[in-house]
């Protein structure tokens, strides 16, 4: 049975792809071009024609927004995690702000900052902030009290304690939040480019649809899928290395 499972793992995706190729090859619907055509267009467009003009700006905005979110969220999350009063005070504000559906903030961002790169970076940062913040707070609150007592007994205080004990202990939880934020970052990158941009992958996909360049549109969608998958893979790789001790301790 196990062998069958392993085989299926490889066979099923390939079979689905083959199915897609076969079904779309026969169709002449405008909306669903043959898979072969999509792949051809993908090759023409993204390897490596439009990388500089669309992929790079998208990724740069993504990286900048995400980085800002991580820094602010952890920076604010640590004091909130350590101080119960501050946390209780901030709770309703945080709960409300994070409940605002991110796309609703786009018009606000446009009004306040305009339609340039800073708007996109800002909104990506704002949306990615919350999962990391909440998880940082939870991670710090969840630290085993025995660890805290140990630091008190052995005089490990201040920044040393933060760096060597608090942050590593909260790290698994923080990483969980960072993972969620990563997918949010991709989503906001795409939406912001669809709504107010002159370049970027999201912009390209929407433009293609509007000018009825359907194979191009699909190629963009496929690219976004690949991007999402690769970013996830990259993140998992980093997480595995940083949290190697955690896997060992909990196996």
């Amino acid at each position, binding site marked *: *049975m196990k062998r069958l*499972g392993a085989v*299926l*793992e*490889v*066979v*099923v*995706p390939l079979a*689905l792809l083959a199915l897609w190729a076969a079904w779309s090859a026969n169709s002449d619907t405008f*909306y669903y071009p043959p898979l072969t055509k999509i792949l051809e267009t993908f090759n023409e467009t993204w390897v490596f024609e439009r990388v500089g003009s669309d992929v790079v700006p998208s990724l740069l905005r993504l990286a900048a927004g995400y980085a800002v979110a991580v820094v602010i969220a952890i920076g604010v999350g640590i004091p909130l995690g350590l101080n119960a009063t501050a946390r*209780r*005070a*901030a*709770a*309703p*504000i945080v*709960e*409300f*702000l*994070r*409940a*605002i*559906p991110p*796309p*609703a*903030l786009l*018009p*606000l961002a*446009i*009004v*306040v900052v305009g339609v340039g790169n800073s708007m996109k970076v800002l909104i990506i940062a704002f949306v990615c902030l919350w*999962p990391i913040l*909440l*998880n940082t707070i939870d991670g710090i609150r969840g630290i085993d009290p025995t660890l805290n007592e140990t630091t008190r007994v052995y005089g490990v205080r201040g920044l040393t304690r933060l760096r060597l004990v608090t942050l590593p202990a909260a790290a698994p*939880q923080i990483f*969980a*939040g960072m*993972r*969620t*934020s990563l997918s949010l970052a*991709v*989503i906001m990158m*795409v*939406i912001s480019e*669809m*709504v107010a941009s002159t370049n970027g992958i*999201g912009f390209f*996909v*929407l433009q*293609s*649809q*509007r000018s009825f360049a*359907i194979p191009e*549109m699909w190629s963009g*969608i496929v690219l*976004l*899928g690949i991007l999402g*998958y690769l*970013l*996830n893979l990259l993140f998992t790789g980093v997480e595995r290395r940083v949290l190697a001790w955690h896997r060992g301790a909990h196996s």
Partner: protein
Amino acid sequence: MAPLVAVAGALGLWELLTRSGILNPDHVPPMTDTVAELVRLLGESSFWSAVGSTLQGWALGLGIAAALAIPLGILIGSSATAYRGVRFVVEFLRPIPSVALVPLAVLIYGVGLESKVFLAAFASFWPLFVQTLYGVQDVDPVATDTAKSFGLSGFERLFRIKLPSAVPYIATGLRISSAVALILAVTAEIVIGSAGLGREINIARQGGAVELMYALIITTGLLGWALNIVTTRAERRVLHWHPSQRQVAA
């Protein structure tokens, strides 16, 4: 006490910064004006109609997603072989940002409710499906073995053991999917122009009615907050007896 002080302080700060001109009132209207606008809206039928449209898209999207994700999740999760066959595909399709499908939705369904529901359903399918899969898989093998030794049939085992064990996971999945469905519904309204709060926000911005725009955005926040509270409460109720898996707090 502390939260009230903080909220009052934040609102006060907002008012101060805008009235004093530090924040440009064309960009950020004063707090009191925004609140007044919000109160005014509560009496407008067009406002409630927009709220209704958004909720309609959310409900239909979430409903369709649940109708598909839960049965499929249970079916596939119950069979280790099926799970392995599907796993790679799920891991690949899952990270695809559903917003990438917005242009596709427009193409096929136009700019109305169907597009919105399609996007909301597609996006909220995945968290729920994956959670259901995990839930069915996570059954304590000792429990299953005990059931087998008592002669319970496969079907009975499904209903008596696997399903109850999966319910907390499904509850968590519903909470996450509910938030996702709302986000995609509003996305469709903002990007495509389907009827709802998102479209009204856009119209307000284009017409330069800043207070209205802010008031509407606050409304979406309140809506999201309310839905959050409902789904979190429901989830907690179901989780309180189960050793809850420590999942992401977002």
